[in-house]
């Protein structure tokens, strides 16, 4: 249902002329038990990988089919000021919006705020295109390096609550 709606409303890759992707389509179906998402930050969309560098781990214990949609630099066309997240992952029950922010270092707070805006804009984009997400459990994920011990931050707690209020999606 959701795949059909995405294809109908948002179509295919908008970067076919310059894309270096092995798989040109924005929609990848995968049922591996464990796979990874890698954003090389090379002006190309994210890649699904089974080894090597990665930022997001997808633990698919039930080996159900998951569709990974490359949104940035692929499905969603480049429009000045139009924000979007890196990719969307879904199966028939859940849908995740993902923004990877771990390539560079520094300005962590600012990067988190920017990621939140990109995720929110993508949710808005889908909804404004009339894509019905109401039957899916939604979650937005910011993928950011955190090697040192995690200390609670009210900024993060409050950002999560604001996001829930605005988009009705858990960040």
């Amino acid at each position, binding site marked *: 249902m959701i795949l059909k709606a995405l294809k109908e409303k948002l179509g295919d890759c908008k970067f076919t002329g310059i894309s270096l992707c092995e798989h040109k389509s924005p929609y990848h179906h995968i049922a591996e038990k464990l796979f990874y998402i890698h954003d090389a930050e090379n002006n190309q969309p994210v890649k699904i990988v089974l080894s090597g560098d990665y930022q997001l781990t997808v633990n698919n214990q039930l080996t159900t089919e998951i569709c990974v949609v490359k949104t940035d630099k692929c499905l969603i066309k480049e429009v000045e000021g139009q924000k979007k997240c890196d990719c969307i992952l879904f199966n028939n029950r859940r849908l995740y919006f993902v923004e990877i922010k771990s390539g560079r270092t520094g300005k962590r707070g600012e990067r988190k705020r920017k990621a939140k805006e990109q995720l929110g804009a993508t949710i808005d984009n889908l909804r404004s295109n009339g894509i019905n997400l109401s039957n899916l459990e939604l979650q937005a994920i910011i993928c950011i*390096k955190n*090697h040192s011990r995690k*200390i*609670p*931050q*009210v*900024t993060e707690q*409050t950002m999560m609550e604001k996001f829930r209020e605005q988009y009705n999606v858990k960040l």
Partner: protein
Amino acid sequence: MQSRLIVKNFGPIKEVDLDLRNVNVFIGPQASGKSALAKLFTIFKAPRKFLKNGNAEANLKAFKDVLEEYNIQSFLMQDSEVEYLSELHNLSYKNGTFSYVPKLLNQIKKIERHGDSLDNNREKIYNELDSLSKQYLMFSMKFRDSMQEHAEQDTVSTGYDAEKVETHLNITQTNFPDIIKAIKDIETELSTNAVLYIPSERNFINIVKNSALNLLLHKVPIPKHILLFGAELEKSSVNEIDLGFLSENLVYRKINGEDRIFTSTENSIRLGEAASGVQSAVPILLAVYNFDEAAINRHHSFVIEEPELNLFPEAQYELIKKLAAFRDEIRGGDWGQLHVYTTHSPYILSALNILLYTNKVEKFLIDKSNSTGEWYDVFNERHSINIPPNFFSAYQIKDGGAESIFNIVTGLISDNYIDEATDKMNDDFDALMNLMK
């Protein structure tokens, strides 16, 4: 209880305007002036504790003396301005002069004057007293008690009319002076019942207790606000505190006037020998738990400097929950406890944020269904303590100013220096790790 504290050119403070509520938290770097603001609040909340019915000059001297007690006398400069505004009173220090307007007392005196011609003003008096009793819970109790008492006495001679129990006709020449006296007593209590300042040096008190004579003999200069707190602790009538949140089975007991920490039923050590976390937390709880609804002149407002001192993160969270559980703000502006915390701890901020969010979630759940469902019991079991957003304020003090870090729309604490510091440390760790590639 809502109040406003405006401070200009006072020590490190250039200009701040604080809207203070029942639970207030100040964050900021060292020497930013957050403790100075907390101390000014402590002083101004109960002005008649230090102003002894003197004239303007005597009041000014008393003000300077009390600044000295709190070790902030050197912060007062030529162009310093300090103003405190509340329902109870206004205080200001400006152009070297000090003024005190006891707003509530003046209001009571006005009502008292109406009593000179009681028969003509009976309705006016009743309405004014009624409006005060809506604002102050203790007024309400005393006022309605007096009315009831006289109505019952009247019943004997005139026959009891239940409908008249709370009407203006029950104000008589006989009971009017009693009512005025009762509410004046409450006003006096509110104006003299000082905030207890719990300093960050609180564990020092356990250490010096046994060497007090030596310290006196050698004239060791100990700031008076620390001694004041020590003296208050000695008066505490709390005999036992469960310290299970610090360590399993840990209990504080006062045995023959001595503070002891029990690690089991038989084994105990002196408080001064206990772990530093115990030495920091016990004085706070001894002060806050020393609260008796029936007794007047007990502290029910507290400034707690760095409640996190020496405590493991989970214990910080539990301490904040214990402190929040002991407040009771919804029962009236003159009742319940008022807390000001100064902190550097992300755990304290996060604990307060959780209590604010608990309030929000509870409201959401109640609106969604009803408060009798099974879900409510489950929720309440884990989250019975909360802080309503309109009873909370949070400020970050830096570079002489104060910025609110409380987002009234979300009802939660927003971006702040403590979290920025965490981000910076994580960034540095990342940058180092990238060099290992």
